[in-house]
């Protein structure tokens, strides 16, 4: 009990000590730190208090106009990152990329696969060049059929009747199937004999 009362009394005394100079306009006594400092080196020029003036800061110079208000956080963020609906400055992830089922390269949805199309384009250009060389300036009155190496002898000449044959002097590319163009009424091959027995 007694020590607590003593502590409270001490605190009260301290408060009074601090509030005296404020109430009666006397200067507060120098703190301990300043005492140490004064002991060591420069004495404090305590009496000479001058009113603050801008001129002290500026001297001979002059002041520019400066922003009077702080920019809001929204505006600062918008300046930095843009707006997602209008101008968005960061990198956006592209969600329209897919992997081609044929070649495994990436392509954009709705567009042709660059790798597959490149292959087709090169072959097409070769064929087109060859056809134009063969036909020249003659009037075109027959369908054109493109055959690769060793394909002309496969069928009798009557099959190509009424069609103009353009031969490419190279083997047929693996990916360009011969059967795609030919319509047939024959039934699909019965694969029963080729069935592996292990499967059951």
């Amino acid at each position, binding site marked *: 009990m007694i020590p607590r009362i003593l502590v409270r009394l001490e605190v009260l005394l301290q408060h009074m000590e601090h509030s005296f100079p404020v109430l009666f306009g006397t200067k507060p006594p120098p703190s301990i730190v300043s005492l140490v400092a004064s002991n060591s080196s420069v004495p404090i020029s305590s009496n000479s208090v001058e009113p603050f003036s801008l001129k002290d800061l500026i001297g001979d110079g002059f002041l520019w106009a400066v922003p009077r208000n702080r920019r809001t956080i929204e505006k600062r963020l918008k300046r930095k990152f843009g707006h997602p609906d209008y101008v968005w400055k960061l990198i956006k992830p592209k969600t329209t990329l897919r992997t081609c089922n044929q070649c495994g390269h990436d392509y954009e949805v709705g567009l*042709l696969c660059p790798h597959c199309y490149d292959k087709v384009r090169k072959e097409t250009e070769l064929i087109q060049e060859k056809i134009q060389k063969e036909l020249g300036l003659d009037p075109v009155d027959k369908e054109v059929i493109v055959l690769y190496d060793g394909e002309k002898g496969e069928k009798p000449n009557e099959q190509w009747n009424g069609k103009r044959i353009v031969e490419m002097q190279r083997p047929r590319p693996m990916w360009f199937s011969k059967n*795609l163009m030919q319509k047939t009424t024959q039934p699909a091959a019965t694969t029963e004999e080729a069935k592996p027995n292990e499967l059951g």
Partner: protein
Amino acid sequence: MNQAEVSKLMSQLRVSIPKKPRRLRNPDGPEGRLNKLRKTVSALVKHERIELNSARAHEARGYAERLISEAIRHGDCHKATMDMANFWMVEKQLVHKLFKVLAPRFVNCPVSYTRMYKAPRQYPGPVTEIRRAVLELRGNPYPPVKPDMTQNRNLIHNVLLDEAKKQYRYEKYAQIAAKLTAGESKAEAKSTESADGNQKEHTATVEEPVDTKEEK
């Protein structure tokens, strides 16, 4: 009034044509635009597959479709059509191709005569990149641009559909055969009035479908 004939007065195209023509920019104005389109349509008929700017391809596509459909409808003895072909084909040997090759090729074509694909873009390309397109005539001799899934009859859905079709036909044949045999047996029954005509009919219906299958 014969209302059914009205639809035959116009070429029916299988591609959608925009209401207003595209304003393709050209230093020579509308005339220059037409000249450019003439060149494009001629190139399409000549090469059967071309790669060009998407907008011009789409614009030229409509003209090419209309031209082929006119050629199919009127043939080469129709003066207006011939004039039109003469206008659109810059190289005159292509007029022959239009009437002698393309018209017979597309006579029974139930879908559009041309196809258009979006060509792949360059990465990383400019933001204001001009989109390219591939325009081609159907039935061309070149390798297909897109893999054709319908051709491979070994894919599982094609196998299932083919078998369903086979079974449907088989059932139809069986029905027809049953009807025929029923008719025959009735006639038989009338002529001979035998008691065991029913049994004969039964056996006949069982055997008949097998025969039809073999004939197929």
